[in-house]
């Protein structure tokens, strides 16, 4: 794997999901590449020899038992967690040390958290405009217009002037998605985006994510929502004890898991 793959290979045509069919394995060139990634929390070896390539336009669902390292994996991709070994590249660029260059790279990676993490002291609109204004230093009128479009797109256009605490969980999470999209990221990371939501709000968030997937956004989604995985994912990755144990298309994975760990895990989440 070379780091300058994006320079030497011709740009692949931009394909939408409908054109390639959702089972297409590699819709585009490699965008996020993890090679031999290792990470410890003290004595705990959370990530063990992780090799993973995510291609442009691909939707990868990460699934696995609690404590298996899914969140940590997600967070290493924008270096909210630093790794101890291996390498991670985004669009050919190696993740640098903390600093200006890392900040620039991070702005290309959207992140959606389980607990939304909207800025509590800013309005919904300000939450969405802050990044483009402060990080990209774009013009205020352009940013505001785009923010309103994004808020409309995720269905919370009428809430623009409210504060996050005045919104339902589902609305907050959709604002969080709009906030990440406002940076026009190359890839979006979702860490259990619906786990903190009441059941009736889960679908409104998944629907927004399905739309994103359909439009060709590259996505890494940690979730136990199998309906979403089946309908939107190109690939399912099953993690256990810090390793990628199994990797397959959603159909194959859910109907025909190969490893005992996966079979065991699936039987647990299916029967309750």
């Amino acid at each position, binding site marked *: 794997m070379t780091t300058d793959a994006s320079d030497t290979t011709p740009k692949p045509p931009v394909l939408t999901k409908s054109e390639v069919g959702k089972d297409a394995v590699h819709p585009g060139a490699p965008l996020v590449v993890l090679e031999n990634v290792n990470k410890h929390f003290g004595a705990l070896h959370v990530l063990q020899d992780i090799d993973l390539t995510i291609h442009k336009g691909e939707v990868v669902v990460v699934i696995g038992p609690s404590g298996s390292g899914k969140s940590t994996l997600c967070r290493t991709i*924008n270096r909210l967690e630093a790794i101890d070994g291996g390498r991670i590249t985004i669009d050919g660029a190696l993740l640098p040390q903390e600093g200006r260059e890392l*900040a620039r790279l*991070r*702005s290309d990676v959207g992140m959606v958290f389980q*607990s939304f*993490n909207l800025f*509590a002291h800013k309005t919904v609109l300000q939450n969405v405009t802050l990044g483009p204004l402060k990080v*990209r230093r774009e013009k205020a009128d352009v940013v505001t217009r785009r923010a309103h479009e994004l808020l409309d797109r995720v269905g919370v256009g009428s809430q623009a002037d409210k504060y996050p605490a005045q919104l339902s969980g589902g609305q907050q999470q959709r604002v*969080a998605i709009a906030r990440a999209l406002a*940076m026009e990221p190359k890839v979006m990371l979702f860490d259990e985006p619906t786990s903190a939501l009441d059941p009736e709000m889960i679908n409104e968030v998944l629907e927004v994510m399905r739309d994103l997937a359909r439009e060709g956004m590259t996505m890494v989604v940690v979730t136990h929502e199998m309906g979403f995985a089946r309908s939107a994912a190109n690939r399912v990755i099953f993690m256990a004890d810090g390793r990628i144990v199994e990797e397959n298309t959603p159909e194959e994975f859910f109907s025909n898991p190969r490893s005992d760990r996966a079979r065991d895990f699936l039987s647990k989440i299916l029967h309750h």
Partner: protein
Amino acid sequence: MLEVIQDNWDLLRHGFVGTLKLTVVCGIVSLLLGTLIAACRVSPVPPLRWFGTAYVNLFRNTPLTLIFFAVALGFPKLRFNLSYFEFAVIALSTYTAAFICEAIRSGINTVPIGQAEAARSLGMSFTQSLSQIVLPQAGRAAVPPIGSLLIAMVRNSAIASAFNVTELMGTSAEMVENGYKSLWVLLWIAVGYLIITLSMSAALAALEKKLAVVR
């Protein structure tokens, strides 16, 4: 008791203005310095963190009078020839800043870690996420302890009179020497201090309300 204030109006006024000046200047300097040191203490750069910790430990655990002496005697030796007022500002502000730093840091600790993570994942720098996201939300929790610290600072400013700075407390000696009853003298001086501290408390209470963040 009224003749104390009638006869010594100019003296009291000078003292009051001196204390007020010390309060305003030291308040601003120690808030800025305290914020800066708090930023050091939560910074990702280890040497800055070490500096912050060392600063707080040094200045919090040294008697203020000692700091006054160190500044008033030490600075002229280093050929910094400043006025006594400036010496007083330096001594009082460096001391107060150590406490304010800790108040701000405890305010920062009340802000959920996810706020800073969200800011960082948007590509904000450490300074941006601190100034745009974390500090504005830390403010609310930090304001009440900062209020007490600033009031303590006003009281501590009395030490400055021992270093030739005209301030409220220092005027008492002169009036008592001139034969006024010390009880009445001290009463009026207390009123002067109260005017300053009470209006400061009111301003801070208003600020606290303004910084309220609903979660």
